[in-house]
Structures are given as C-alpha cells and as structure tokens.
C-alpha cells in the first residue's frame, strides 16, 4: 500500500540540496523522495534489533536554542540508530546567555567539524543564517514562526500510511496558524503534493493573505470539517490563551476545540492529527486524541524518527562518498 511508487533522477540529482531549511524551495518529487527513503526505516524501527552503522564516525550536533523535548529526542534517536555520534547543545547551557552572537556560535560549531547540524531557534530565518555560515549540512528543526520541515514530512508520511495517498485528500489545519511554523511547512508540503488544504482559526490567529499560499481559509470549524479526510489540530500556546488573542481557553474550546460531538458530525473516517504537545481539553478532547482507529497522534511520533533518519542519511551521503552522491 505504501511502497515507493515514484522514480527519481539518479544519485544526488534526486535531492540536490545540501541543507533542509524548509519545505519552500523543494520540488514535489524531492518531497516524495524523502518520504520514500523514510519507508525503509518505518519497518526497521519496529524490529527488536534496530541499529545501522551507515553514519558511524560522523558527528551530528543538535543545537537547540529553544526548548524542545520531543523533536530533540526524535533527532537524537534517529542519529543514534544510524550509528552517528550525536551531541546535544541546549541554549540554556550555552554561551548564548553570555552575549555570544548567533553567528559566533555557528562558527564555533563549524570549527568542531560536525558532519551535520540540526538547529532549532526562536527567530524566523535563523537557521538559514547559520546554514550560510557553516560548511556542513544543516537541518531545520524549527525556526521561529517560519518552517519546521521534518514535522511536515512526518505528517505527510503519516497521512500516506493511513490513506495510501496524499493527492486529492482534503486536510484541515485548525488552530493558532499565525504563530505556527508547523502550519506553514504543512501547507507548503501538502499543497505541493496535491492535497486540498483548508485552514481554520479565529481572525486574530489567522495570518494575513494566507489564501496566497493556496489554502482555503475558514473561521467556522464545523464548515471547515465538512468532507475532510484529515484534521490537524495545532497547539495553542499557553501565553496566548488569556485575553490577548482569544477571550479564554473555554471559549476557544467552544469554537475551535475538536470535541467528540464535533468529530461525530464529520465523515466517519476523518482522521485526527496533532503535532504535540497537546492541551487536552482545550484544542482537543482526550477521548478524541485517544481514538484508536481515528487518531494518528502516536503514529506521527513514530514516523518522525523514520523521517529524521531518512533526512540525516540523505544529507550526509556527500560526506560519506556514497556512490552517485559525491
């Protein structure tokens, strides 16, 4: 059902980029290439013995300037399963707090001869800025409100596993789109792969001119859900809940929460996704999040490791002198 169906140019022509900074700038066949590369790791990760040595001897630095548990863990596991030496750098422990500039930090990481750097940063564009200054592949693990490409790829892989395809599906993304890099990357990825994307948010959390990104904007969640194949809920940041952008969490739940009753009014096979961490009882109800046959939330986490293994593998083929990728 989910076997690689696409054909690609040979060798590095299938993915002719040094870095993975965003979904923007990638062609549809390049996205499919990464998804197909990830397929082998999905099965592999379910084995009891899950160790591969293809990245043995390579150093991967996870430089996280913003707090993260899930994404950091996912990248760390992905690197280690492929045999790489993985080092994590947290902003809290770094010299950033001593006033070192981002560029200086990048130059320092570069001087340590990392073979790949995974970066999360709170400012849009920060990862590109670092990528321009270092000599090794850079993977964006989230930059400000700009992009989070591996999240979009793992979401696409999850949908493809559940539905067998992405093309022609109707996907609803609901929540704080204004501040969401997950939403931006998903919009780019899903529209590029031929899905119809609807976005739903209260006006204060809807980015200006979002329809220019080939999506259909909605303010009424029930309308957006009509005929949807997948509904992707976004996390509502705690600091935005009280008064400034929405009146209160309970009002938000009333209008935009994915409740059992609301889900019951949609197609019986509409699938539920959430990038995590969830605010149970606010944007998503517990009994919806835990629906065994409709919630893909834990599957997303599983696919995340496979996608990150594929990305680390593909981006280090140059340094590993893989045939056709030198």
């Amino acid at each position, binding site marked *: 059902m989910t076997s690689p169906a696409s054909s690609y140019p040979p060798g590095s022509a299938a993915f002719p980029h040094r870095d993975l900074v965003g979904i923007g700038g990638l062609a549809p066949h390049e996205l499919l290439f990464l998804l197909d590369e990830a397929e082998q790791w999905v099965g592999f990760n379910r084995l009891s013995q899950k160790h591969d040595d293809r990245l043995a001897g390579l150093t991967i630095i996870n430089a996280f300037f913003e707090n993260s548990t899930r994404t950091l863990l996912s990248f760390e596991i992905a690197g280690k399963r492929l045999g790489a030496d993985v080092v994590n750098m947290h902003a809290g422990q770094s010299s950033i707090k001593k006033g070192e500039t981002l560029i200086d930090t990048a130059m320092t990481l570069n001087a340590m001869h990392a073979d790949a750097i995974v970066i999360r940063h709170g400012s*849009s564009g920060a990862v590109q*800025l670092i990528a321009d200054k270092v000599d090794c592949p850079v993977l964006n693990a989230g930059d400000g409100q700009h992009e989070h490409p591996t999240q979009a790829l793992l979401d696409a892989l999850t949908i493809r596993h559940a539905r067998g395809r992405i093309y022609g599906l109707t996907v609803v993304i609901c929540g704080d789109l204004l501040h969401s890099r997950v939403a931006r990357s998903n919009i780019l990825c899903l529209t590029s792969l031929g899905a119809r994307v609807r976005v739903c948010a209260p006006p204060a959390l809807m980015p200006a*001119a979002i329809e220019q990104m080939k999506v259909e904007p909605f303010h009424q969640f029930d309308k957006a859900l009509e005929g949807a194949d997948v509904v992707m809920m976004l996390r509502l940041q705690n600091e935005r809940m009280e008064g400034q952008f929405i009146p209160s969490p309970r009002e938000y739940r009333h209008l935009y929460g994915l409740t059992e009753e609301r889900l019951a009014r949609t197609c019986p096979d509409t699938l539920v996704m959430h990038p995590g961490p969830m605010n149970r009882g606010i944007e998503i109800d517990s009994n919806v999040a835990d629906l065994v046959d409709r919630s893909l939330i834990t599957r997303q986490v599983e696919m995340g490791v496979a996608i990150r293994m594929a990305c680390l593998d593909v981006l280090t083929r140059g340094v590993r002198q893989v045939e056709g990728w030198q």
Partner: protein
Amino acid sequence: MSVTPPLAIINARLMLPGETQPVAGVLRCVDGHIAAVGPQVAPEQSDAIHDAGGKLVTPGLVDFGTFAVDKPAFHFGGIVRAAVMPDNGMLDVPSRVRFVASSGKPDFWVHPLAAATQGLEGTRLAEFGLMKDAGAKAVATGRRWIADSGTMLRVLQYAAMLDLVVCTHAEDAGLTGNAVATAGEMATRLGLPSAPAEAEALALARDIALAEIAGARLHVRQVTTAAGLDLVRAAKARGLPVTAGVTPAHFMLSDIAVAEFRTFMRLSPPLRAEQDRKAVIAAIADGTIDVIASGHDPRGPEGKRLPFADSEPGMAGAETLLPLTLNLVRDEVISMAHAFELLATNPARLLGVNSGRLEAGAEADVAVIDPDRPWIVDSSQMEASAGNTPFDRQPVQGRSVALFKGGAQVA
C-alpha cells in the same frame, strides 16, 4: 575666522529656482554667500575659478531626518546639511543640542531636531524653547509615534507657539507592536511578526487632526502607503501646513525584497506592498511628497548579522540618495528641477535655513553633479561608517563631483 576668497563656478549648467531646465551660466560666491548667479554673470578678476566642465550645478543637498552624522558619506552624496534625529545621543536637553549643532562645522552643517518628549518616551514635554535657542531647527518624535493623543496635542501646540515644525513617525504603536514587516503574503510566508499597512494611515489621521487643532506645522518624515498619502493629499487640499517625506527605499523596493530574510531590508516603517510603492512614486510626481531624504542610519554587523526580527532597522542611505532620486528623473516621473526641490529646496525651507537654492543672498551651498556618471553601489566599500545598504551591487547613475559649503570646496 578665515575668510573664503571669492569663487566663480564657470561652465555650469545651473539649476535655478523657477526654471524647469538647467541654464548655462556662472555662479559667484563672496563671503560664503551666493553673490550672483545666472547666464549673464561673469567671473571677476580676483575670483578663484572652478570649472564645472558643463556639468550640472545645483544646490547642495539638505537631508531631513538622519540618525547619524557621518560626514564622509554625506560629502560623497553631495549633502551639505543634515537635520539629525534626536534618537542617537538623545537630544532632549539644550546642551546636547548645542554640541550637535556645532559638531560638523565648517564643512558640514548639522541641524539638530529636538526631542519632542523627555527621553523620547512620549509622556513629558522636552524643553524645546531652550533647545531652539541652542540650535534646534524642528521638533521630532524620534523613531516612534507618540501614542498618547493628549501629549501629542500639547507637543504640537507648544511647537506652534515657537514656530517649529513637528516631525512625526507615523505608525500606530498599538497595531505595530513588535512587528518587523508589513502584513501580507511575504510576512506570512516568512513567519515574521507583521502589522497591517493601515497602521500608518491611522497614525497620520490622528496627527493631522491634532495639528489642525493646534495650528501647528506637521512634517511626516516618511509616508509609505497609498492610504497615508491620500490623507496627506487631502490635508494639503484643505490648506493645512502638512508636509511629507520619504526615502528611496520606499519608492525603489517593496516587501518582496525581504525574501530570504535579508536584514539590510529591515527598515522602519517596513517595506510595503508593490501598490504602495507605486503610490509613493505617484505622490512624488504630484507634489504630495515634499522631501526625499536618506534616512541615513548606518548599522554594523552586530546590528544586522542577526535573524531578521532580531536585527536593527535602518539603512546607510547618504551615498545613494542622489542617484536613486535621479532614477525618478530618468523615468520621467519628475523633472530635474523638481528633484532638487525635493532634495534641497523643500527641506531647507522646512528647517528655515538660508540654503537649498541657487539665488543671490543664499549661503553658497553648491554641488557640481554629473547626473549620468555610472557607478556600482558596494556595501564593502562605502564612505559611511557601515555598509548596510539595501542597494548593494546595484548599478546606479549620478555622482556629486564637487561640493561647496559656504563657498569653500569640501569634496
């Protein structure tokens, strides 16, 4: 005090007030002032001679609203006077105003703009009566808008009493918040904090209404949107003493230039949509905009080599002001004469200084300009203290080839 010997600039194509085209002739300077200028004027025996070689001879540029006194860059750009904003060095007390007012002499004159409120915090009026006596030529709200309407009204009333223009920054602070871009497709794609372009018209509408109550002269340093320009146009039609300025960035660039997070494009106000850029050009052509200024604000790498939203706003603009304005002449948006009204005559009049026009009796602030001379902007080789130009590597035309301040050659 040294006395500058009499000077005659010969072989000049003179940009004279009231003329739409340059006129061949001679300009004579005596005691730092223009003694005679025109086609019938001849050099006298004792005059030192400067042969302009048939080049354009214009008033030296007067740059209204810069953030740094950066003499080499100004001289490169044909600028002889700059009205400097109160932000850097906090010009809210007479002593600092007096210091800045004398800081460039004799070869470059700096006209301080007094801070409208103490510390530019927008709450308590600064002593602009004393600052006027110390050399301040206008009052300015700084990089920010004064959010409190009561405070702004009192600033305008007080300035009107002292016959000082109030120079305001038109962005409604409540709407802009921490925005670094104009709301629209580009900001949305890049995930940058953004504010609607209407923040400008909102701020302008209030400031114009308050200026009318106060009977004050209001100069909006940068008007960058179609809606804002419509308000200025309407105010002028009603006879209100409202003037508007702009910098070349807002008639040369739109927010498409922000793509790839280029921090040299981080400006305040931010770059706007393409239709606003076109509205700025139309407003320059129809006289709604009175002043084109450099907005000169050099920022080193420590302010610019940062993620876009964390970087400082501003551009080094003194060197590119002239050639980019001449683009409008080459594109037949404005005449050559109109260009120098925007660059010299109008800003000098706003400041109330005897400069900005080639007329007997005016101070001999004169530029010799080759309007067609090609050169390439290079951020690594600028005279300015930092090379943060949005126009890096762009080919341009037009250079000041000689510059005179008070009849003495300074560049």
